[in-house]
């Protein structure tokens, strides 16, 4: 799997290259600024990207915008966005840029190497990986939305779904059977008014509905 990597801090760039290479990815470009990132993303050989939010020249949200642009050009292009702080707002913008194949994590999560590499794989497989911090901030709010109809257990399942986990993984995390998880997910889909026919994307849509609250 060929990746484009953008990270302006040399130390972190080296660390990420080592971790991703050890995880079996090939880094075809490792850049530290937005113009070079645009070039690298234009390369059709790139299959996915791992991007830092702040990059040269303005050190604001170049990485985020590059991710959204790349996904406009190539719908479904997997992007994992890393940042030193996470914002609900940014998560929403990333999720709105297409169904799935998106990740948004705090840089700290990289230190759990296996989990991080697994997250990148899940994003490339079309999953959604959102940082628990964002999820916690959404949990803390109490808006009057369809998600309010979810039971506590269903909300838990949805939170794990937002982290890009499969039913099996959720079952393991909650110490229940996969069948029970399937029951919860179906109930979530019903409560969030998600139709059955687009089953593949329903998980992502459920997460979206939840994050947009």
């Amino acid at each position, binding site marked *: 799997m060929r990746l484009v990597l953008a990270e302006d*801090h040399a*130390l*972190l760039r080296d*660390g*990420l290259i*080592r*971790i991703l290479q*050890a995880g079996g990815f090939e880094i075809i470009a490792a850049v530290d600024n937005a113009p070079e990132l645009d070039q690298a993303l234009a390369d059709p050989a790139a299959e996915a990207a791992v991007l830092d939010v*702040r990059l040269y020249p303005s*050190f604001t949200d170049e990485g985020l915008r590059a991710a959204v642009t790349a996904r406009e050009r190539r719908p479904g292009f997997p992007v994992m966005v890393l940042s*030193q702080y996470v914002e609900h707002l940014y998560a929403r913008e990333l999720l709105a840029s297409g169904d799935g194949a998106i990740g948004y994590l705090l*840089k*700290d999560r*990289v*230190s*759990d*190497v*296996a989990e*991080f590499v697994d997250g990148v794989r899940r994003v490339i497989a079309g999953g959604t990986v959102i940082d628990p911090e964002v999820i916690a901030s959404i949990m803390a709010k109490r808006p009057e939305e369809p998600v309010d109809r979810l039971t506590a257990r269903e909300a838990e399942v949805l939170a794990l779904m937002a982290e890009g986990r499969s039913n099996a993984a959720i079952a393991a995390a909650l110490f229940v059977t996969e069948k029970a998880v399937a029951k919860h997910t179906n109930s979530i889909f019903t409560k969030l008014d998600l139709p059955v026919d687009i089953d593949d994307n329903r998980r992502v849509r459920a997460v979206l509905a939840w994050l947009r609250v």
Partner: protein
Amino acid sequence: MTEQTLVPERLSGPGGRGSPGAPEGPDRLKLTGYAFLQVLLAVPTLLFFLVSVIGGVLAVAWVGLAMLFVAIPASRWIANRHRAIASRILGTPVPAEYRRPAEGAHLVDRTLTWARDPMTWRDLAWALVSLTVGFTISLLTVLLLVVVVTGALWWYGVEPIMRCRARIDLALLSYGHAERLEQRVQVLTETRASTVDHSAAELRRIERDLHDGAQARLVAVGMSLGLAETLFESDPEQARVLIGDARATASAALRELRSVVRGIHPPVLADRGVGGAVEALALDLALPVTVTQELAGRPPAPVESAVYFAIAECLANVGKHAGAEHAWVELQHHDGRLVAVVGDDGHGGADPNGGTGMRGVMRRLAAFDGTMAVSSPDRGPTLITLEVPCALSSPRTTPS
């Protein structure tokens, strides 16, 4: 903006500054001398008043401008003589608060600065009054002495009469209470805006420093340790190297944090005050710096911090640009002002408006009504004087 409001030049009498309300003014003969001088000055006053008015009317043509360029400075000179006399008689300073045109301003800009300066119009009004009422008063004083029979009247009258004249001049030639308040509001509005800008920029800088420095390094520590963890069994040698990296990065992060803290508020500034902090700063510089301080107490913390960073910026500039072999810092407090002088024996030619650093210093000092003056002739020496009005608190007597 082409005009700059600067610190007014002080024209004060002998007993002016420092001892207002000095009991004894000039003696009777001296007062009469002033009156005589004022009578004489009435002639050029009239002349330049007329030239100013005609020049003002004709200002659209070059000839009018030329007339103004003669008449305005001359009128100001005359007005300044009257200010000096009024100041001596009343024993209070009568400052000449003219706006100065910006350095190298165009002819038209200079004229506009004059036209916009309320003091120019006050001068004109004063000319009218001084040519009529003022002239009469001064002439009367002189005549009372010259005509010997009125000697008694002169003896008792000269002082009140001349004080009356001086009060009229003072009222016209210096700003009234409301105008001063207006000017003060203007200055406060400007300095407040720039203080807010300055603090916002500082916060942004601190956020950037933390984000790019300590925070990024701590993430790197996490990455190295994470990788080491995965390699522990398969490649212990590599894992050991990674843990070594992590340790080095962790100390670098700590160093970064310390430098950020120093940039916000140096611990030594909190402990020892501005004098001690400047001494500590001097020790860290490659250039030899002599610090002399005569502070009986400590200025308020915000002033202390502003002055410290101002001195730090000045010394950093000396190190970068001055080509100096030696620099010195003097800290004093007198007449309710903290005065810091930063000097160096470099090649001079420093431009206070040259860098963002110095402008930042000026803005930060301005928030406390402080000023910065730069004297930097070619071939040096450069002297930068920072002044901030403030009181000193008595030295802390903490039990140690």
